[in-house]
């Protein structure tokens, strides 16, 4: 009889009354659940890897072309034009062709849709788990935080892989097309910039893709979430 004697205090702040999930703990939980569902996460990430590697490929191609233009003079201009680049002689710059730009944008769009789809499925699978967490006292914001963290980590890993892959492939293609000498003329700074841009873009896409599924999960009534497995 003694232990149940406490009166339900209204939780109006103060020590011992809070509901928390420290950042380190949420990081740990989301990392673990990614690791356990490794294969599942790989599928979610794969479309991101492809889209980001394509983006990085195109950007680094431009960097290589710019390097070539800077060092190669007239021959370079001819070679680049033959390879299908829009060369702006006066400005000394190379640009993506309009078609290429569209393909990049399209691939990113398709990738986002793919991520939304994969995340929706993975969130639906986890409804009971989310319901349990809410029964144990998790707030909506905690659920949201866990999913965003997971997506952030997935995005970072996937985008990094994709960007490196794209850049390597671009070097390979550049070396084959213009001779291996071209690699010496590559402006390292702008290549790094391109890779960084691709990684950032990939992370952003991953977060955008999980936003709706995570919001759906966080708002779920606990009892419905638990029952949804039956």
């Amino acid at each position, binding site marked *: *009889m*003694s*232990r*149940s*004697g*406490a*009166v*339900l205090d*209204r*939780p109006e702040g103060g020590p*011992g*009354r*809070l*509901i*928390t*999930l*420290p950042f380190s*703990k949420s990081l740990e*939980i989301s990392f*673990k*659940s990614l690791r*356990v*569902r490794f294969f599942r996460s790989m599928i979610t990430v794969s479309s991101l890897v492809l889209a980001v590697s394509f983006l990085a490929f195109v950007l680094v191609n431009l960097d290589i072309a710019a390097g070539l233009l800077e060092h190669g003079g007239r021959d370079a201009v001819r070679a680049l034009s033959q390879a299908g680049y829009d060369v702006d002689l006066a400005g000394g710059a190379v640009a993506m062709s309009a078609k290429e730009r569209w393909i990049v944008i399209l691939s990113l769009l398709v990738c986002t849709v793919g991520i939304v789809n994969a995340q929706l499925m993975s969130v639906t699978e986890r409804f*009971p*788990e989310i*319901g*349990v*967490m*809410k*029964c*144990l*006292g*998790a*707030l*909506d914001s*905690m659920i949201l935080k866990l999913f965003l963290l997971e997506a952030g980590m997935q995005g970072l890993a996937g985008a990094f892989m994709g960007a490196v892959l794209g850049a390597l492939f671009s070097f390979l293609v550049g070396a084959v097309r213009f001779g291996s000498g071209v690699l010496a003329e590559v402006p390292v700074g702008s290549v790094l910039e391109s890779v960084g841009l691709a990684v950032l873009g990939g992370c952003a896409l991953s977060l955008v893709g999980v936003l709706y599924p995570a919001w759906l999960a966080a708002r779920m*009534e*606990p*009892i419905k979430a*638990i029952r949804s*497995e*039956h």
Partner: protein
Amino acid sequence: MTEEKRTIVRVIGVRKTFTMGSQTLEALKGVDLEIYAGEYVSIMGPSGSGKSTLFNMIGGLDKPTEGKVFIDEVDISQLDAYELAWLRNRKIGYIFQTFNLIPVMTALENVTLPMTFAGMNGDDAQEKGIELLKLVGLGKRFQHKPLELSGGQQQRVAVARSLANDPAIILADEPTGNLDLSTGEEIIELLQKLSSERGVTIISATHDYKMLNVSDRVVWVRDGMVDRVERREELNITIGGIGEKLTGRKQEPGGA
């Protein structure tokens, strides 16, 4: 034992209607109920009787269409999301028919999760989690994942988890529904032990007749109303006929 009863759950005139398309279904038609601190109460009734709905109301998992539910004299419909989460975290422990452990976490992590939410530091939580797992008889298996444990063991982990923040009330929704006869009995014994030793109020929705022997009171729900409330002493007299009285069919073990 019953001299100074303190009401911990008070249900007043609760109605619940569900709307499905153009049809409305009245699951609860005005229920009044009082449950005292430290009691072991079973809510019995056939499926579709409104038993689960009533149970969810008491647990703060669902809100009544009309009427009020008080837990420790606090009207839970007045609580905001944060306060409700706090209530679920500290005041109520849940046990489910399907165990509902988080599959990606070990037994210990499952038990310590509510403590983490409550802001307890990691080492204290670990220590308390191991202590609780010992209490339910799983002292050695705390590093196992739920799927590596048997049904009975999973339910023991769930019992330990429900005790994480020393709740005043444990709500058990068909805790033996997915277990075989003897494991079910073990879980019931465990719950009874908790009720008598720790003074936890245990409220369980069930149609497992094994529960009757350990309950202080049994609330029979039928057609969205409380049909009758019986004390254990009264039950013993009539126990032979209960199965047929309730459902018109013979008693079956477990009965999910």
